[in-house]
């Protein structure tokens, strides 16, 4: 469903990523890891078409997004759910309104909003806090809000850039459980993180980047689709 083919991006003389090639299949959970400045966030931003690569192709569902015109970018982004380290929630809107914004952006008919928002709020465990403002919520809850906003548009893939970076270990762990749950429901997740503990615990596919180049790709590992049904049931 997602393929990066010999993708390179430089900022002046600095090569942020070089010759990046990998493929992610439907339902996979992939970690992109590496030290700070290795190029993880650049990869996420390239997939989100925040950056245009200097060379290479980025194909989502058979469509090369590097060839998309500026006016087509919103359409591409509406198919991708995004979660950031700093949550990026709208501070002047309630949690429920933050999620509704994503539906308004995706032009989802208003009569479907309530049901869809309730569904994702329940999924992330924030049903009781829908009318709270971000300033009234803890970091973990804000990240759950961001995840709910990403999920509500039913995206093809979820991109998460250091989603646990601002959270304590316990909260990070619960957020990762949530991501795992969502992945098990069939969502493709690509997560940039340098949190080794999380990567080790999750036992998913890991693409390691060093100085903009892929130095290790553990290949498809234990994605939901690959697992025998009994194993998934056991985990539940």
């Amino acid at each position, binding site marked *: 469903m997602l393929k990066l083919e010999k993708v390179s991006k430089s900022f002046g003389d600095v090569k942020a990523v070089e010759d990046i090639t990998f493929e992610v299949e439907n339902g996979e959970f992939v970690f992109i890891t590496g030290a700070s400045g290795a190029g993880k966030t650049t990869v996420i931003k390239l997939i989100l078409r925040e950056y245009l690569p200097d060379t290479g192709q980025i194909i989502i569902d058979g469509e090369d997004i590097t060839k998309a015109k500026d006016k087509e970018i*919103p359409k591409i982004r509406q198919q991708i759910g*995004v979660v950031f380290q700093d949550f990026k929630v709208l501070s002047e809107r309630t949690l429920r309104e933050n999620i509704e914004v*994503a539906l308004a952006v995706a032009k989802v008919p208003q009569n479907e909003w309530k049901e869809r928002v309730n569904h994702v709020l329940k999924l992330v465990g924030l049903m009781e806090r829908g009318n709270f403002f971000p300033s009234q919520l803890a970091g973990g809850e804000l990240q759950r809000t961001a995840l709910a906003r990403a999920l509500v548009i039913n995206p093809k893939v979820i991109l998460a850039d250091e989603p646990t970076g601002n959270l304590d270990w316990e909260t990070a762990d619960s957020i990762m459980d949530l991501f795992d749950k969502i992945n098990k429901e069939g969502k493709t997740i690509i997560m940039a993180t340098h949190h080794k503990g999380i990567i080790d615990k999750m036992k998913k596919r890991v693409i390691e980047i060093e100085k903009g180049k892929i130095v290790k790709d553990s290949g498809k590992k234990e994605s939901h689709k690959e697992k025998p049904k009994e194993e998934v049931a056991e985990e539940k």
Partner: protein
Amino acid sequence: MAAIFVLTTTFFVATVLSIFIYSSGQVIRYFETRPQIIAFLKDDTTESDITILEAKLASDARLKNVSYISKEKALEIYKEATSENPLLSELVSPSIFPASLEFSVNDLTDAESVIDEVKKESIVEEVGFTASLGGESSLTDVVGRLRKVTYYIRVGGSVFVGFLLGTSLLVILIIIGMRITARRGEIEILDLIGATPGFIRSPILIEAVLYALIGVFIGWLSSFILILYSTPTLIRYFGDIPVLPSNTLRLLIILLIILGSEVLIGIVLSLTGSILAVSRARRKK
């Protein structure tokens, strides 16, 4: 508040100036359409001679508003003019007033030649000008001066309103720019979750249009109150000269036309300002 204040000032001045331009136009029209030339007729002139000369003047393309004033009509006008002093009208009879043909010229530069021609008519005793204005040179002078003053009001006023509109545009640009800076985080989030430029821009544009509409309305309303308040005084002061319509409905229609034009200008102004501010912000990104 700053945007609304500047827009209010702009549209207050624009409304007052529009009315001023309308009034000066009315004053010019008043003087131009007054009978400027009066041909006093000899006492022994027959009705048929008068009719022939009247028809001749009426068919002259240089002239307009040709009308015959009989001795009786002249007395009536005199009585009306001296109504405050009835003794004066009692002392006169129609016989002392000569009958006359009154008319105006379309272009005052033709006045001299027209007078010379009319003087040559056998039934004409004397040719004169509107007495209160004191003759040809004075009339030309007054209308000429009025035209000049009106021209300066129009040009000067337009430049001033243009300057105010420019200031308003700059203020909108700066204020919307500041609002965009304050909302940069929100704009970034919306952009990342796939909002179209139109979706991101629309609240900013609506805000700017609202500023403009409030500014237009307050500016227009203030000048409307000022004009309504001063209309009776102006009408009394200028007497016969219709500087403002004495009919309230007609005055209201003029003010509503001004309001409509200002709403249109306000919307164009605010949209231009906000679109420029948004594109500046995008370039800075």
